[in-house]
C-alpha cells in the first residue's frame, strides 16, 4: 500500500518532470486522456509505435545527409513527416529540432542541417529513455489518475 503510494508518487513526479523539462507538451496529455479502460496502455503503445516507425525516417534522413549535394527538398519532406509524427505524441524538444532543421533546409544551410539533425537525434533518444522509465513505473504502479497536471 505504502509502496504503491510511493510508486504512484514517483510516477506522478516523473510525469511532471517530463512536462517541466519540456520533453513533452499538451499533446501528450491529449494522449493520456484517450487512455481508458479499454486501452489502458494507449500512451505507451503510441509512443512505441512512434519510435518504431520513425526509426525508418531517421535512417532515411541520415542517409540523405550523406549525399553530395544535399537534396534539401527531399530532406524537408522527410522532416515534415517526422515532425508530424513527433507532434502527435507531444515530443516537444524533438519537434523544436525538427522546425529548426526545416528552416536550415529552406535556407540551404548544409552545416545547419547536419548539426541540427545530430541534436535532434540526441533529443529523440533522451526522450525515448525517459518515456521508457516513466512507462515502466506507471505499469508497476497500476492505473492512476494522470490527467491532473496541465502545463500552461
Amino acid at each position, binding site marked *: 500500500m505504502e509502496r504503491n503510494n510511493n510508486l504512484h508518487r514517483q510516477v506522478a513526479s516523473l510525469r511532471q518532470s517530463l512536462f517541466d523539462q519540456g520533453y513533452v507538451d499538451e499533446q501528450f496529455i*491529449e494522449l493520456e486522456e*484517450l487512455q481508458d479502460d479499454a*486501452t489502458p496502455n494507449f500512451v505507451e503503445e503510441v509512443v512505441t*509505435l512512434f519510435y518504431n516507425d520513425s526509426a525508418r525516417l531517421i535512417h532515411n534522413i541520415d542517409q540523405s545527409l550523406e549525399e553530395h549535394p544535399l537534396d534539401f527538398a527531399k530532406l524537408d519532406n522527410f522532416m*515534415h513527416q517526422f515532425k*508530424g509524427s513527433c507532434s*502527435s505524441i507531444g515530443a516537444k524538444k524533438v519537434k523544436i529540432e525538427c522546425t529548426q532543421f526545416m528552416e536550415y533546409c529552406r535556407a540551404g544551410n548544409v552545416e545547419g542541417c547536419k548539426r541540427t539533425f545530430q541534436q535532434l537525434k540526441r533529443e529523440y533518444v533522451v526522450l525515448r529513455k525517459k518515456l521508457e522509465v516513466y512507462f515502466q513505473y506507471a505499469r508497476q504502479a497500476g492505473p492512476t489518475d494522470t490527467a491532473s497536471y496541465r502545463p500552461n
Partner: protein
Amino acid sequence: MNIGSGSVLSSTGSWKSGDVVSDQFPVGLRVLVVDDDPTCLKILEKMLRNCHYEVTKCNRAEVALSYLRENKNGFDIVISDVHMPDMDGFKLLEHIGLEMDLPVIMMSADDSKDVVMKGVTHGAYDYLIKPVRIEALKNIWQHVVRKKKHEWRDNNFDQSGSVEEGDRQQKQSEDVDYSSSANEGNWKNPKKRKEEDEEGEERDDTSSLKKPRVVWSVELHQQFVQAVHQLGIDKAVPKKILELMNVPGLTRENVASHLQKYRLYLRRLSGVPQHQNGLNNSFMGRPDATFGTISSLNGLDLQAIAAAGQIPAQSLATLQAAALGRSATKSAICMPLVDQRNLFSFENSQVRFPEGQQQLNNSNKQIDLLHGIPTTMEPKQLANLHHPSQSFVGMNMQVNSMAQHNNSVIMRMSQSQPRAQMLSGANNGSQASRLPLSMQQSLSSEGIPGAVLAQSHIVDNARASVYNPVSQASSMVDFSVNQSKELQNYNFSLGSNSSGMSNRGMLQEEANSDIKGSRGFPSNYNIFNDLHQPKSQNWGLQNVGSSFDSSHHPSIQGTQGVSSQLLLQQGISSTHNNGQNRNGPIGKSMYTNGEESGHTNLMGGPQLNSVSRNMLAVKAERFPDADYQSTNFPEQFGQDDLMSAFLKQQGSVGPVETEFGFDGYTLDNLPV
C-alpha cells in the same frame, strides 16, 4: 492496411436510420481516416472512437478509395492527410468529391496559408492542423450535416445557386468553431471553386438571393448555346445572351450563372479531349457488350449518349429498351428518364453487378454523350409517364427496377469509371460525357439521368470530380447507398414534399424523390426532404423535377426531370470544387430512390419525369460550377414539349451541343 474495428461495410449504425439519427447523431458517424503516418493514424482512430464514431483507418489513399468505392454508402465523412506517399491528399480529395461526394477534411502539420488555401479550393470541408486534438474531431459531424442540408436545400428551394452558396459559405464559417484555423477558409470554398473554375467574373450566385430557380431544360439550354454561338463565346455576355434567347422570366443572373458553368464545361472539355474520345470510342465499340451485359447499363449508356449526343429520343429509348431488355421503341426519351431514376433509386445493392466493369466503361462513354439526357428511360416507363396518376406508381415500379438495375450498373460503372475519369482531371470533358451514360443507365428513372449528368458534369469540370460520369455513377451510387442509409428521408416523396416544391415540380420531385432512393443525386435535390430527414437525401434532381411542370403529363415530367437533373448536375459540377460534390447528391438521390421506393412508388410517375427532367436539365446545365442551385427548371416545360424539344435538339443540336460540352449531346458517333 489497417481496418479499424469500425465497420466499413456495416451500415447498421444507428445514425443511418433517419429516425434514430436525430436521436443519436452523431453517434455512429462513419469516418474513414487516411494517413500514411501510423502513429497519427492510431491516435486519430482512438480519438474518433472516443467520439463514438465508427472508424475505419487506412494508410494508403488508393486503398481508401477502394474502400469508398466498394462501400458506396459506407462512410459519411473522410479525413485525410495532405502529404501521403502514394497520392497527394488533394487528389484524393478530388476523387472523393467526384465519385462519392462525401465531405472530406484535410489534415496536415503544415499550416502555411497556401496549403490551407489549397484545401479550400479543392473543396475540403475543413482543414485541421496537426497535431489534431479530439475537440477538433468532435465537431466534424457538422460538415456532414451541413452538406446534406445544403444539398437538400439546393434541391428543394427555388433559389438560384447563388443563394445556396452564400448560405453554405456562411454556414461553414459560422458553424465551424472549433475547427482548425484553416476553417475560416472553408466558407470560401464554393466561391473559390467558382472563381477558379470560371473565367468570367460573374458571380451571380452569391449576389442574387432567393431567385426562383431556373431549370435549364434541354430546350432552354439549346437556346442558350445557340445564343452563345451566335454571339461568339468570347463575346457572349449574359445580357446579350438573355436578349437573344428571349425567354420570358429568365433573368440575366440566371444566364450569367449558366454561362459560368458552360464556360467551365467547355474548359473541361478542351482539357480532356482525348479522354472523351476514348470514352466515346469505347462506348461505341462496345455497345454490344454493354447490351449484353447489363441491359440497364446499356440503357443508361444509350441515354447518356442520347442525352449527350443528341440521339433522337426514340433511338435512345430504343437503345435503352434494348439495354433494359424492354421494348425499346416506345419510350423515347421520357422513358429513359424514368428508368434512370429507377436505376438510381436502386442503389447500392445493384451496384454489385459483375458486369459493371464493362458497362462502366461503356457508361463512361455514354455518359459523356448523354450528358444531359436521361432519356434512357425505358419505354415502359415512358408510357407510364404519360399516364399521370396510375402510371406513376407503375412507373415507379419500373423505374425502381430499372433504377436498381441501373444502379448496379452505374455503380459499377462509376466505380470503374471514376477511377479512370476522375483521376484524370483533364478528362473532365470526356468524363463528363461518360458519366451521363453510366448515370443514365443507372438512372433509368428520371432522377438518374440527372445524376449521371451531374456526374459527368462533375467530371467535366476541371475539378474532375463532378462530371466524371463514371465516377459519378459510382459516386452516385455510393451516395445513394449512403444516402439511403442516412438520408432515407431525403428522398422526399413527392407526396410529402410536394408542398415544399413548386407545384409543378412537385410531382416530378416526388418522382425524383423516389429516385432519390438511388441517392446518387445530391441532396440538393431533396427539396422535399427536410433537414430533419437526413436520410432522404434524394438527389436534387427531384427538386429539379419539381420545377418542371410536374403537373403536366407524367411523360413530360420525365423529361423535365431530366433537365432538372441536368441542371442539378451542373450545379453540382460547378460546385464540385466545394468538394464534395454536389454531384454526389445527384447520384445520391438516385439511390435513395431505391430505398424510398416504398413511398416513392406513388410518385414514381412524376418522379420519373422529374428525373428525366433532371437529366435533361443537368445536361443542359452541364456546368458543374453552377451550383445546382442555379439550375433552373423551366416550369413551363411539359414533358411533351421537352421531349420534342429534346428530340429536335438531338437532331439539330449537333454543333451546339458539342459546344455545350456535353458529349452526350453529340451522339453523332453513337451507333444508334
